[in-house]
């Protein structure tokens, strides 16, 4: 059991990295990776939201949708539930943990309907994970996202002042960087 969970976590975080091999969540990956500080904030927020969303969506699917035989409505229900969840978490944090709210800041509402969040919730269902596995998978996937966005931000910080040909400045060189990172992450595929 422990071994399976560990393998699952490793697989989700590194081998089939959510951004670099599944191409989910590219928008924040490219958008907020200019500075390491904001990137790590985004990474934390994503870990937070995906783990929670995995838990809630898995519970709702197993105990409500599946029981009633309306599993085909999962996409709509998940969107609804995740959006509401993030709203609630935001309110809760603002009231009870203002420090965390301040550090996560704008990232929380930004990732409400991010495809990585919804994608992970749907993957959990597709692979028929139980609640525990879903939560572990969610956490590991998000950790993989945080890892890759931090790496990209680090590279972008180092290369920000490089003499890049005009046509490649900005997004193009970032995408090339991300592509090279994806190739590097292919190296993990032999891990499991």
């Amino acid at each position, binding site marked *: 059991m422990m071994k399976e969970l560990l393998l699952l976590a490793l697989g989700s975080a590194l081998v089939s990295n959510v951004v670099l091999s599944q191409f989910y969540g590219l928008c924040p990956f490219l958008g907020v990776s200019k500075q390491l500080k904001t990137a790590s904030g985004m990474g934390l927020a994503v870990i937070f939201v995906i783990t929670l969303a995995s838990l809630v969506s898995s519970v709702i699917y197993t105990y409500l949708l599946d029981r009633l035989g309306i599993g085909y409505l999962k996409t*709509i229900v998940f969107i609804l539930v995740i959006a*509401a969840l993030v709203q609630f978490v935001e309110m809760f944090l603002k009231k009870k943990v203002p420090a965390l709210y301040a550090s996560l800041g704008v990232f929380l509402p930004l990732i409400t309907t991010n495809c990585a969040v919804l994608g992970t919730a749907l993957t959990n269902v597709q692979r028929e994970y139980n609640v525990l596995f879903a939560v572990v998978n969610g956490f590991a996937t998000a950790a993989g996202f945080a890892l890759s966005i931090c790496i990209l931000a680090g590279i972008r910080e180092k290369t920000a002042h490089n003499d890049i040909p005009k046509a490649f400045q900005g997004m193009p060189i970032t995408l090339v960087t991300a592509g090279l990172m994806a190739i590097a992450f292919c190296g993990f595929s032999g891990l499991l």
Partner: protein
Amino acid sequence: MDFSAILTAVLVIGVLGLIIGLFLGTAALKLKVETDPKEEAVLAALPGNNCGGCGYAGCSNLAAAIAKGEAPVNGCPVGGEAVGKKVAEIMGVEAGTSTRMVAYVKCNGDCDKAETDYEYSGLEDCRMAVIAPGKGPKKCSYGCLGYGSCVKECPFDAISVVKGIAYVNKEKCKACGKCVAVCPNHLIELIPYEAEKVVACASHDKGPVVMKACKGGCIGCGLCNKTCEHDAVHVENFLAKIDYEKCTGCGACQEKCPKKCIFNH
């Protein structure tokens, strides 16, 4: 046609939506954070550039600090006096006069005046050039490198590089402080808009060293100090510094200065 399936689907989604709605509604009431109406009013009065020139993370943070009384009502350097007055009205206090500040590059060692040690062909960025031997190609290790990192950083298009030196257009400058932060030689300073005379040098080197490096550098001879009748110029660590509050702009020091490194602002 199985109507019960449709019915369950509609019911489940509907009820779920209703529950979530009610839940969020009550949560919003229960977890409501009292935001000061003043804070919102202050935020509306601020420029909203989110430049961070005030030292807070953005306009909303400054607004919160002003509403709490932690920041002065004229805390926004970009909005200046006009915004300060508006905010003061909202907060119900006297604005106090805020002096408008502008950035100033303390160097006049342009291509003609400053000597170079070698030809630099690296990246066109001061932050990179400063890593090169001798803190860049110029003989003077204090001066403006002229690769325009501040130009790129300025959100108001107020800085330009002329003959290898950065100049700030003081009309356009909003004193946000971004250039001050980016300059690797810490050469840019915020000085009063009203300042009459400025010392266009930042070199703390001794006279002979400065002489060799730059025709326009301050050698710390102290003539300005002796000439000034208003006790406004002082030489500290081989560099003249003008006290803008005492300076009357008479120009006596400017005339006496053997290296002509005191300029009209």
